């Protein structure tokens, strides 16, 4: 039996095959023209996390894939494909971020959102775990002290809750306020998981306490600032307003900057 060149060429030509069905969604996600998604367990139950080559694009409290895909397409204009599970590196980065490690880098895909919204979310990222700031504080910190309501709206539109911790922004009167990821009950659950006592915060706020100072350092803080938490009860001085603190000779904490939002509030 002889084997001709034509035989060999035909045999080699038969080696052409089809790409795995996973290739197209992976490529399109890598370049940001589609997203992949997977389920993620959190303190408030099952979440869906969507991402692409540019970063994490959405976090939603749902376990309904089809509904998520439809909403994702409506919001972003992109299809979302079930990836089964998060890439290990992303899963551990999200877990570490939720544990309070702000150094861990998580890229975000925030295309299609305004500069104002990005500024608000970036500011929310700076609030440490276990602490909260008022909406007015965020507005003042981004240089838009009169845009308190718009800050609330932007936080409500946060596409990546938990990763951008909009749950750490509360109402200027000290109450916990609304939450986009399944309502205010979840906001309290998450804050509690981060070591805060939402009920205690609200009752202190109801009694009029907005700031806390130390009579040894004469520094005044927002009540949840980590510096304020170190003040022992005998040296703890509550204030109803920032003006009362300054007129009593206190200066503002450089970490929590309690003066921010005073104008706005």
């Amino acid at each position, binding site marked *: *039996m002889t*084997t001709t*060149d034509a*035989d*060999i*060429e035909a*045999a*080699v*030509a*038969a*080696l*052409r*095959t*089809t*790409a*795995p069905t*996973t*290739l*197209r969604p*992976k*490529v*399109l996600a*890598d*370049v940001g*023209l589609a997203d992949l998604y997977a389920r993620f367990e959190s303190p408030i139950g099952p979440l869906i996390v969507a991402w692409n*080559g540019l970063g994490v694009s959405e976090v939603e409290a749902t376990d309904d894939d089809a509904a998520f895909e439809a909403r994702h397409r409506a919001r972003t204009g992109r299809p979302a494909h079930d990836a089964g599970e998060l890439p290990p590196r992303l899963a551990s980065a999200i877990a570490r971020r939720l544990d309070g490690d702000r150094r861990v880098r998580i890229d975000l895909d925030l295309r299609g959102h305004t500069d104002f919204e990005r500024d608000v979310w970036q500011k929310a990222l700076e609030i440490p775990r276990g602490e909260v700031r008022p909406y007015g504080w965020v507005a003042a910190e981004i240089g838009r002290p009169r845009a308190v309501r718009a800050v609330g709206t932007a936080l409500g539109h946060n596409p990546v809750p938990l990763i951008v911790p909009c749950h750490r922004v509360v109402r200027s009167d000290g109450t916990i306020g609304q939450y986009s990821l399944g309502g205010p009950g979840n906001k309290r659950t998450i804050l509690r998981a981060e070591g805060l006592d939402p009920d205690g915060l609200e009752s202190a706020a109801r009694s009029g306490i907005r700031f806390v100072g130390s009579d040894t350092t004469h520094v005044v803080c927002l009540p949840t600032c980590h510096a304020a938490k170190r003040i022992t009860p005998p040296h703890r001085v509550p204030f109803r307003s920032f003006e009362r603190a300054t007129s009593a000779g206190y200066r503002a904490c450089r970490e929590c900057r309690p003066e921010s939002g005073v104008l706005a509030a």
Partner: protein
Amino acid sequence: MDTDSPLLAALADDLDGSFETLVVEHQDRLYSIALRLLGDPRDAEEAAQDALVRAYRALAGYDAARIRELRLRPWLSTIVLNLCRSRLGRRGSVRASLSLDAALPGELEPRTDSAHGPAETVATRDAANDWAGLLRTLPVAYRSAVVLRHVDGLSYPELALALDRPEGTVKAQVHRGVALLRTAFEAAQRQEREEMTA
């Protein structure tokens, strides 16, 4: 190629809106090239993915005129080929030092039987595996030339572009590659006959 013109025009006009068409039209050939060069399906998918992503990023940086002038098939082939070569290089000298015999598949189906009987699909698949295995025994330069010419079906002018060599050189590489394949195939058949009579 003329057949690329509508796609190139679309890519030049709206990259994000038409890139998926490029993926759909070229993913099978890029995956096939990578699979036949690398052997491992997972490696091949990664190489094809990487190639398409690099193509997108390159296109995003080109102006419309440059995109319209592209020869899409050889251009994409070059990208995947370079990625496969660097993957093969990274695998190190372990596999490269395997002897030719060790890399040969042990059980070659008689080709005359492969088109008949209930075992046809199995036999066809085995035959494909055999030829894929034989192909991988070729030195990379010849393997690349044979894969692009006969698996992917590039013309010689396209192949010259893809490999950045004169047409005469790539023709010689393809012919030499096919000759090496024949030698490997005949050696494998001989080995099989010896094992059956032993």
